[in-house]
């Protein structure tokens, strides 16, 4: 029966699609409503390039700090791990990344890193973030979706360069090898970005190059990872604990009435020190990520459009020297082809499409090569039932050679009053194990690097599909552009989630952890709920505020699943203010906080003693470090726009102790203020 379901729904959709008779034009067409959705309503958030620049963030992964519906934390200031609220980044977040409409894989061994994307933060025009299950450009977003759209330049040329460096004070300086040595502090950069672009008469070509360095010299992190970077004998050599990233991205094409096409190419090379959970320690890894893509639309008459997309991507973790010669390397390459047909009428829009993804992975596999193909059929149906009610039915059927998965969402948009709208959605989705392609999926398919962990897969006959039942509600109100209020909530039930539980013991004399058994639980189950409120207020032309507050709870579930989900920061607060009293002077400030991450596995090691390889640092492992407020002062001068921007960041405003987990540190209040002058 299951096999006939997609065929039946597809035929039904096609039938209705072809026979659908446009009714009389309505005050608000489907396309108008969809266009409004693109502006950030309906379980979507749009982060504009302007907002990115005003927020003061300087690195790609910091985009997560602007995604109010996501939970995340940084291990080292270089990598940010996040998942849409209610899901866990620890067990593989599984969100989808699109760059200029093409899906880009940025997950390696359960670490999903935005830094692997080849784009520069400074070429971003906007980011569309989806936090509820729906079909977006042919992708079902049950684990969330981030769509980065590049190309800031308008007509004509654009050329932009940027360089940034930072340094915390209190370094040991030249005293490091004297008897008055002190711990190191963090160094950031130098980071550099170069953007070039041209746009004229619908034709466009733009590109970026970005380079980033982050030296992990902060003592709590350094002392954990330095031993792992010891590559001697015969020559004792400690690799500098640093992460670096180089990325290049080019996109060109044409947009016109007769259709559009674009070509894109990108490459990222990243060196990083990842905390690999099964090993209980950080490992240096080299990454390569290459992308080629082509996309086009062809109008078929006045109401129909043909959508075509193809992409090739190769990504691989490479070997970086480490004490135990752990080699994570493998190569994966994926072809993806998507074909869609969209028909738009006054009260109806339907899109039907199919996508084929074929992935080959080689190296570090017992079988030599793994080949996985997944075929997706999808359709998305928007219909005005009534002048104040629009419904959407999204459906996707996914199949690989072993299993099938069905994903479907029913959503309704009620125009309650002229200025009030209510979004609701009910979704059920299954997820193929091959769709996630996480650590345990590769391990179960013979990824040999994990074989020394002696993990038993006996309890799992196969890595099975998981499922999610989700209900979301969001109410929006706008009053004459001065006040907008958004209140929302969700209830989610996860089933069949594969979880792992690691037991660790501290390894003396080193300050790392050794796994002491890994247990897999194939049937993680939990029910979570969350609420949020977002209020935007404008007072006059010059002053505006935004407040976001949200939180989530685990209502019930199996013990391992509860343990994982309860470790995620549960509450989040963000307040921003923008003030433009006169032309040529703008001021922004922001305050943000989230509750701390927790990791019970590591709390057990609190109080254990450690000593590093050189014997320079020794002590007792403590989960908390002393209070320390950070002050960041920055300046930026635009050479062509006569603008001077000054910024002041204060982190840990309440000066509370930090909780130092390998998975990430607890964050306290962060306050920033920026001002811009036209000189």
């Amino acid at each position: 029966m299951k096999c006939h379901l997609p065929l039946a729904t597809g035929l039904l959709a096609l039938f209705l699609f072809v026979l659908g008779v446009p009714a009389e034009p309505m005050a608000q067409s489907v396309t108008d409503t969809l266009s409004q959705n693109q502006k950030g309503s309906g379980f979507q958030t749009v982060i504009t390039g302007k907002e990115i620049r005003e927020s003061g963030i300087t690195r790609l992964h910091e985009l997560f700090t602007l995604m109010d519906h996501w939970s995340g934390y940084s291990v080292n200031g270089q990598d940010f791990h996040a998942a849409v609220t209610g899901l866990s980044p620890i067990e593989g977040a599984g969100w989808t990344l699109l760059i200029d409409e093409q899906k880009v894989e940025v997950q390696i061994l359960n670490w999903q890193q935005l830094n692997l994307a080849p784009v520069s933060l400074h070429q971003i025009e906007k980011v569309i973030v989806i936090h509820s299950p729906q079909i977006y450009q042919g992708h079902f977003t049950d684990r969330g979706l981030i769509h980065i759209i590049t190309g800031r330049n308008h007509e004509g040329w654009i050329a932009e360069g940027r360089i940034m460096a930072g340094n915390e004070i209190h370094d040991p300086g030249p005293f490091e090898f004297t008897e008055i040595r002190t711990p190191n502090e963090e160094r950031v950069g130098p980071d550099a970005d170069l953007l070039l672009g041209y746009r004229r008469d619908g034709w466009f070509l733009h590109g970026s190059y970005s380079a980033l360095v982050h030296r992990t010299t902060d003592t709590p992190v350094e002392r954990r990872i330095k031993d792992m970077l010891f590559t001697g004998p015969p020559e004792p050599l400690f690799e500098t604990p640093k992460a670096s990233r180089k990325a290049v991205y080019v996109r060109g094409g044409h947009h016109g009435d007769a259709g559009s096409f674009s070509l894109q190419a990108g490459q990222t090379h990243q060196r990083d020190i990842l905390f690999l959970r099964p090993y209980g320690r950080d490992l240096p890894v080299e990454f390569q990520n290459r992308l080629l893509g082509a996309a086009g639309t062809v109008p078929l008459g006045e109401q129909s459009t043909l959508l075509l997309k193809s992409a090739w991507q190769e990504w691989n973790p490479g070997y970086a020297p480490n004490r135990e010669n752990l080699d994570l390397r493998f190569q994966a390459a994926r072809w993806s082809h998507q074909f869609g047909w969209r028909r738009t009428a006054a009260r109806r829009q339907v899109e039907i499409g199919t996508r084929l993804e074929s992935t080959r992975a080689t190296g570090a596999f017992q079988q030599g090569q793994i080949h996985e193909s997944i075929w997706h059929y999808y359709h998305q149906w928007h219909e005005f039932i009534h002048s104040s009610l629009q419904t959407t039915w999204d459906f996707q059927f996914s199949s690989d050679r072993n299993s099938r998965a069905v994903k479907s969402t029913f959503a309704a948009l009620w125009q309650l009053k002229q200025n009030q709208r209510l979004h609701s959605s009910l979704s059920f989705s299954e997820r193929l194990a091959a769709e996630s392609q996480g650590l345990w999926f590769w391990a179960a398919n013979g990824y040999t690097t994990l074989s020394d962990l002696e993990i038993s897969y006996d309890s799992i006959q196969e890595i099975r599909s998981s499922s999610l039942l989700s209900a979301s509600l969001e109410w929006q109100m706008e009053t004459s552009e001065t006040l907008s209020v958004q209140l929302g909530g969700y209830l989610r039930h996860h089933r069949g989630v594969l979880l792992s539980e690691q037991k660790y013991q501290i390894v003396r004399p080193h300050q790392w952890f050794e796994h002491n058994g890994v247990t897999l639980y194939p049937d993680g189950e939990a029910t979570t709920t969350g609420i949020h409120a977002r209020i935007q207020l404008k007072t006059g032309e010059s002053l505006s505020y935004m407040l976001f507050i949200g939180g989530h709870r685990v209502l019930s579930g199996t013990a391992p699943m509860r343990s994982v989900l309860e470790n995620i920061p549960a509450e989040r607060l963000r307040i921003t203010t923008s003030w433009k009293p006169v032309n040529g002077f703008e001021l922004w400030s922001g305050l943000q906080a989230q509750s701390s991450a927790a990791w019970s596995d590591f709390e057990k090691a609190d109080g254990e003693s450690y000593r590093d390889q050189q014997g320079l640092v020794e002590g007792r492992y403590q989960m908390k470090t002393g209070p320390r407020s950070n002050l960041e002062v920055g300046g930026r001068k635009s050479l062509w726009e006569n603008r001077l921007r000054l910024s002041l960041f204060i982190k840990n405003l309440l000066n509370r102790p930090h909780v130092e987990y390998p998975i990430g540190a607890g964050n306290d209040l962060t306050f920033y203020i920026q001002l811009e002058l036209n000189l």
Partner: protein
Amino acid sequence: MYCFRQIFPALLLLLTGTFLTARGQSPFETSTLGAGFSTHLTDSELTEYWSRGTGFAVWWRTPFYLGELELHAARLPYISKEPEVQPGLTNIQTSMTWGIPVRIGSRITLFGGILIGNSFFYQTGKGPFEYPESEFSAGFSGRLTLRLTDRTTLQARLQQTRIYTYHRIDDRRLTVGLEYRFDTPGWLKSFLR
């Protein structure tokens, strides 16, 4: 927070100065290049481990919207007192100074300003340093210039810099050198503006 109290007034002063511009001089109209010798005047915690030497400095300065802006770099040697324990060091101090020049007569100019910068320490031979140690620095600068010809001047500068390592390094330095002034090339002026 001690650091914050010191730096914030300086930044405020710089900002206020920038606000009060758009009148008077034309920014970046001229450039002055200089070079000279530089030596420390005081002992610090550093000199317990290293002997100080005389180095050299180069600088470039130009009129700003208000006052003058200067970029300065100095290379200063430190000779280790126990080379087997800690290596010899080369200290590169880079800074950006903003201040107000005051003319006294036709040939002499006094200048007082604030500076922020970075201090890099490199080891001169093999040793335990894995990479340059670098730290933020801030301080004050005062100088006296004596015009020799239309385009050349003799300069004596006294600079007090605090390097914000955990054990603070307070460095007082005297620099003496010659300067040459010229009209800033148009392309550079456009770029700077």
